């Protein structure tokens, strides 16, 4: 596996309760099973109840810092549209943004529109993709909790992360309770089907 020498820095942003830590666990198990060194950082506790959250996942031959440095992310996955803006700090021209079309309003504040958000991020990166992950998952699978898995699957199929669908599914099997495995697998199938249409 030559690509092991390549480093990959992943930032996942969203709000507390969207399952960011589960995603982090799945991704890191997948990376570990492919032979990468892995370091991650997450936050727990009260500030995470519906509040803004970001987790860091780094993989490569040898990783020291658990945090991604400014401008060094390869990919930003945003489970909430407005939170994608947080990814800009970690981005450079090459950084890919996979953004879930899913605006969770902030009380007493006017939400940013998708257009506003994308135009800001485009000043930093050219590769910004808005994806109706929540909507598609809700429609086709009856549940939008797997929106993150859907985005992750797309990232894998499109080779935006150096992780194979097989190893991610293995990670899911390890982390997610058995009764949800089928749903997750269906999410992958759905992502595969829509892969070409999206970008």
């Amino acid at each position, binding site marked *: 596996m030559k690509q092991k020498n390549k480093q990959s820095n992943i930032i996942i942003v969203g*709000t*507390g*309760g969207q399952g960011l830590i589960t995603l*982090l*666990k799945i991704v*890191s*198990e997948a990376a*570990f099973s492919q032979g990468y*060194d*892995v*370091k*991650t*950082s*997450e*936050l*727990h*506790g*009260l*500030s*995470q*109840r*519906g*509040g*803004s959250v970001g987790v860091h996942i780094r993989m490569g031959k040898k*990783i*020291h*810092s*658990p*945090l*991604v*440095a*400014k*401008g*060094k992310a390869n990919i930003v996955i945003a489970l*909430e549209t*407005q*939170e994608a*803006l*947080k990814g*800009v*700090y970690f*981005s*450079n021209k090459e950084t890919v943004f996979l953004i879930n079309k899913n605006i*969770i309003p*902030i*009380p*007493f504040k006017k939400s*940013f529109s998708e257009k506003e958000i994308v135009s*800001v*991020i*485009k*000043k*930093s990166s050219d590769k910004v993709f808005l994806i109706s992950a929540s909507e598609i998952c809700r429609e086709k699978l009856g549940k939008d909790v797997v929106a993150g898995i859907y985005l992750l699957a797309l990232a894998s199929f499109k080779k935006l992360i150096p992780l194979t669908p097989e190893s991610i599914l293995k990670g899911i099997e390890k982390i997610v309770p058995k009764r949800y495995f089928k749903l997750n697998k269906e999410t992958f199938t759905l992502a595969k089907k829509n892969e070409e249409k999206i970008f």
Partner: protein
Amino acid sequence: MLKEITSKKPNKKILLLGNDAIVRGALEAGVQFVSTFPGTPASEIGNTFYQIQNSEYKIRNLYFEYSVNEKVALEAGIGASFSGLKTLVAMKHFGVNVCSDALLPFLYTGSKGPTVIAVSDDPNCWSSAQSEQNSRAYSYLAHLPTLEPSDSQECKDFTKIAFRISEKFKIPVMIRLTTRVSHQRMPVKLSNLPKFNSKGIFIKDVERFVTMPPRVLKMKDELLEKIKEIKKFSEKLEIVRKESPSKSKLGLITSGISYLYLKEALQELKLDIPVLKLGIFYPLPEKEIEKFIKSKSKVFVLEELEPYLEKEINILAKKVNPNLKVIGKNLLPETGEFRPEMIINALAEFAGVKYEEPKSKAKVPSVKHIPQLCPGCPYWLIFSAVKRAVDEKKVIFGGDIGCYMLGGLPPHNLQDYLSCMGASIGIAHGIKKSTKNQKLIAFIGDGTFFHAGIPALINTVFNNSNPLIIVTDNRITAMTGHQPNPGADNVTRRIKIEDIVRACGVKNLKVIDPARQKEFIETIKNFINKKEVSVIIARRPCIFLKRKNETKK
């Protein structure tokens, strides 16, 4: 995960959270007694032990408890150590404040069964309301040997080393963590688990276990002597290590999480500067440091929060290299946590090299989703009743530590002071005694009430003041991840808060389900005008607890 973390002969690597690596390290050391009070960023240490002991992987001859607060957790640990058991006590940094009264004499008596205290600090206050505490100060105050791991592998290894030091010198040892160490994951190489020995035995030894003058001063002398010995011992510890043989006149000294950012920065800037990594903070391996700084013209000390290490190195430099320039907090902040790019920039400046930070042209507006009470949380009902019962502008609201802190944020805005565990009541009493007719409502959760609320409540009765206390009783310690407390359902013998309140001498007492808004509002209106202290226990289980129980059925 439980299967892997308890595997007896693993000989492999698994991904572990820093806190879980502490658990594994303690298991590999053969820990027999574990006590804790939950607090982020240390909570998972207790959670994992709890899960292990309530699963098919339960370890025989290992005792675990969630104690009522950190003071009794440590005291329980001291009792176990006095009885000869290998003991681990875990807590978040504020817990050390709570248990400090028991901690200092424990250093005087020393430990009998090897004892490790795992403490997690929270630079940047990610999950800590009251202060950005640097628990290294306790290393000095208590003469507490202190190790500082950088990552999960070291969390495991250092825990075992800490037990070794404790065993050799009969002294408790602190493992000082921070959020980014506790909540970091990486592949960790496991070793075998030993046999867990059974019960201990308390052998009377007045000389050793009783701190009382005049013996107490002699004990202090003995403690100082131990520290001297440990200092010598620490010089040879494998966790104190020099990296890079380069002859550079520059040097870098660091420990904990900062080390990882530093390694990253050295790589980024392609620099080869010797690094002294100190795995031990107290007592410092002074000889090793002196050797390191002797031939240097400039050293950079990298540590989060207060510059304790930098001060020590300045003192040592006076002795062995008076011309040495010691750089530290002039390039790095004393408030907040470090970030990798911060260290890259600071190191570039220190080494006199250029670094162009990646800059983005995007002007990013601030997005801040404020944490909210969960949908269906009973606290919505409590705050809404309070808002409807009183004129918010005319009432003072005391906050405390728990999910109900969110009452201080929009849309509730019901929090005029917030301090440490239990202080909603303690401070309420002081305010009531100091003011004339100002009304006051103090909120305190069930877990916090048991932790530190009871003495404060007794004080309002004993010294006669009349705040209205609302116990926001959701039947569980919710914020830190649903640990049981004495009032919870799944405990051997449930203690009812109303029984305690009554026993404290409180006459105005009512237990109400906050869903009964009308009754709740009427009671608030009635109680707030009482001449004596009054207590409403607003009882309704945490929404997640309800769901958990339902899925179990």
